[in-house]
């Protein structure tokens, strides 16, 4: 009896296993059309799940990467951190640095074949500068002539934007600003959107328009096809782009970083950004090339709340920097893939001869003693856990600052809470990162200037030095680039001495890609990875 029963059970089990086997073996090659890195389809790792694709949003890197493929902007930044003409072939800046005139390329077209003119640019900028609909760009364009009248309802359009002819777009500013380009030129900012698609949408409805979930008309090298939620974004070559791309389709896949590393090995992914901690693993895989770029990801920093009396003395902040062995951290935790910054400015704006705050606990103790530091009072260090290098740095800060008499208590917070405590200045120390400071010196104003404090947003340390502010004002009005550079280097020197932030480290951007991909130039800023995607080719 028992044997017969077991035989039947075994039969059912075998049938189930066979069904699973058939399913598993239906395509033994695995990976499908894009899986082997061949043909004309490319699979790229998308490190976050995108939400939607609106240039009006305050978007994160993943959305920015997709948008840089399907939209285009007037000017972008290349891998050497220099301005790269995009829709605008050239631009003039008036001697008073208040008027920018952009000259568009001839014969520009949208992906649906309709002509792209300065009217589209004007339409886009009217939206981008409107605080009621634009979360991401309105702040960057707040100084354009007429924005205040428009916001208060006195004017129906923003007077500072104009399109005198189909190939020319003009921006007028209230005050001199040589740094405007850096505000609109990041590959992920100020994208131009089609007026012929969105022009009839009422302004109060435009923010929620379904177009932003599926922007199938754009001016980028690729055209949006679909977003399979939480799986992948598919884009296809835009035949109307000024220099049509060679690779036919790009799939941007949202997987975890572990899976991304594995898929680089299997060929399911052709290109991925890898963490410094995974760099060695990837270098051990055959058929892959690894490249790294410095300075494009800003820096991971600790803001020191200078609304608290105990942190106002620069000697306390300098002591903290001397107490931290940042050089060894970069070597050990980042495998050497990083820089140790000593000012908030980066790249060419950093002069030689500034203090490198080399690890010196004795000096740290002396500075703290001179500043009458009260070591009995704990100092909380708030950060969002889950990123290995940042978690490691918090551990290091806790032990090395404790060693010199600063009693650090790590405090884990969620993203939402971090924003709140930074906004309300209810923190002691807080660790965060980001920014692109290599292109233009003016980009540090939101994190350094006294003027950035009232909004309690960008200048999270609440650092204020009127001398730095005066220099920053002088620099944005200075038409001579060499002189501007000199002024920003002065800012860097002052900032270095006063330690506005605890500059922790600046991680390199590391890219790994299949050797079948050619023409790829790794950008230091990962959101600009596709800056020359139209020139990429796939062989084999």
């Amino acid at each position, binding site marked *: 009896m028992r044997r017969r029963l077991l035989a039947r059970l075994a039969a059912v089990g075998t049938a189930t296993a066979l069904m699973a086997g058939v399913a598993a073996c239906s395509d033994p090659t695995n990976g499908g059309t894009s899986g082997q890195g061949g043909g004309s389809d490319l699979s790229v790792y998308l490190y976050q799940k995108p939400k939607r694709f609106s240039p009006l949003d305050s978007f994160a890197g993943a959305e920015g990467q997709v948008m840089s493929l399907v939209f285009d902007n007037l000017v972008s930044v290349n891998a050497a951190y220099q301005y790269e003409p995009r829709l605008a072939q050239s631009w003039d800046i008036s001697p008073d640095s208040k008027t920018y005139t952009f000259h568009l390329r001839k014969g520009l077209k949208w992906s649906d074949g309709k002509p792209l003119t300065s009217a589209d640019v004007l339409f886009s900028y009217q939206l981008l500068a409107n605080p009621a609909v634009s979360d991401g760009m309105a702040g960057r364009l707040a100084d354009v002539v007429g924005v205040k009248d428009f916001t208060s309802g006195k004017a129906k359009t923003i007077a500072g934007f104009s399109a005198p002819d189909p190939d020319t777009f003009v921006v007028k500013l209230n005050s001199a600003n040589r740094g405007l380009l850096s505000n609109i030129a990041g590959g992920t900012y100020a994208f131009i959107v089609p007026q012929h698609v969105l022009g009839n949408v009422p302004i109060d409805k435009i923010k929620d328009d379904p177009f932003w979930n599926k922007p199938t008309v754009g001016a980028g090298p690729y055209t949006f096809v679909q977003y399979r939620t939480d799986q992948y974004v598919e884009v296809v070559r835009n035949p109307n782009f000024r220099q049509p791309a060679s690779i036919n389709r790009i799939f941007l896949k949202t997987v975890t970083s572990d899976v991304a590393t594995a898929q680089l090995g299997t060929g399911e992914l052709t290109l991925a950004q890898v963490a410094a901690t995974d760099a060695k693993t990837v270098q051990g895989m055959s058929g892959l090339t690894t490249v790294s770029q410095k300075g494009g990801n800003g820096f991971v920093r600790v803001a020191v709340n200078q609304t608290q009396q105990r942190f106002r003395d620069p000697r306390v902040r300098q002591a903290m920097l001397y107490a931290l062995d940042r050089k060894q951290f970069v070597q050990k935790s980042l495998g050497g893939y990083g820089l140790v910054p000593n000012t908030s400015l980066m790249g060419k704006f950093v002069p030689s001869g500034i203090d490198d705050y080399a690890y010196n606990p004795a000096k740290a103790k002396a500075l703290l003693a001179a500043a009458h530091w009260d070591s009995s009072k704990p100092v909380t260090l708030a950060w969002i856990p889950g990123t290995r290098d940042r978690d490691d740095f918090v551990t290091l800060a806790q032990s090395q600052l404790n060693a010199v008499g600063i009693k650090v208590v790590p405090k884990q917070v969620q993203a939402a809470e971090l924003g709140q405590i930074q906004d309300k200045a209810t923190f002691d120390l807080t660790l965060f990162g980001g920014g692109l400071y290599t292109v233009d010196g003016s980009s540090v104003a939101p994190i350094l200037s006294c003027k950035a404090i009232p*909004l309690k947003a960008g200048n999270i340390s609440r650092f204020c030095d009127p001398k730095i502010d005066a220099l920053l004002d002088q620099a944005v009005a200075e038409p001579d680039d060499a002189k501007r550079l000199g002024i920003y280097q002065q800012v860097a020197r002052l900032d270095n001495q006063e330690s506005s932030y605890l500059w922790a480290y600046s991680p390199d951007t590391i890219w790994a890609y299949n050797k079948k991909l050619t023409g790829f130039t790794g950008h230091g800023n990962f959101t600009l990875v596709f800056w020359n995607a139209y020139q990429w080719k796939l062989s084999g």
Partner: protein
Amino acid sequence: MVAYVIRRLLVNVLVFFGLSVGIFALVRAAPGDPVLVMIDPTQAQGAGPGFLAMKRHELGLDQPLPLQYFSWLRRAVTGDLGVSYVSHRGVADVLTERLGPTVLLMGTALAIGIILGALVGTIAAVRRNSAVDYTAAVLSMATVSVPSFFVGIAAIYVFSLNLRILPSAGMSTPGGGGGADILRHLVLPATILGLSVAGPMVRYVRGGLIGELNADYVRTAVAKGASPWRVVFRHALRNTLIPLITIVMIYIPQLLGGAVVIEQIFSWPGMGQLVVSSVAALDYPVVVGFALYIGVLVLLCNLLADVLYAVADPRVRLS
């Protein structure tokens, strides 16, 4: 029974109301400010101090909490769960979009779990204290105690990276697709989830069946010459069904809520992934909508369990 179901449904409406108040209050009690999550402070720079207040007003977050609740409830009863702060899409749409992948993954996992659990549990009970029984005990303990993220990563390593017979992540091949392709993507996550269901199921089935096989009516059936197959499946196994119904009904909301870890590892676009990202972004409308969906599911499954009791065991009378 119809009167019973109607009465229970009415009670559920009250429970649902209480649930909605609780969920709404709890979600709002979470620390943080959704506007500050949505807007990068350095990008808001220059727009003036009124900018963030304006954004709060746009989302209705400057209203008193009770007012926010009633305006939400008024819309919710008509099926309008509001608009996601993040994707700017209707919450009902966002949830519905996730329902398909979740039902597919969880349904398959549940089926694997039940079939495997019942099968192995029955064998273990019939061949009690044999090598098969002991092996089943060890394996079922292992499925419960080894964390699914470990099994998931190990499975990717073996089946995707080394053997290369199954895809490592996603629900379909980009640019490909089709039923067979989805099935291939389903094998690893569904099996791993299914095993986690099967583990405890084996113990329940085995325990229940052993009790039944010792009962007098089984001895009577054997004495009357009923075949072993008939004794186990028609008589004994049927009587172990009632506790199993409870277990399965408890599993359904749990599984349809999404297996967060498995979905993350295998990039499966289900509910679990949605709720994790929505909580991190303080996307209140989606979190509240999701919590309500789970609440309703639990209430319905409880009701269904009661009704199924009566179907499985005619002695149970619902009144």
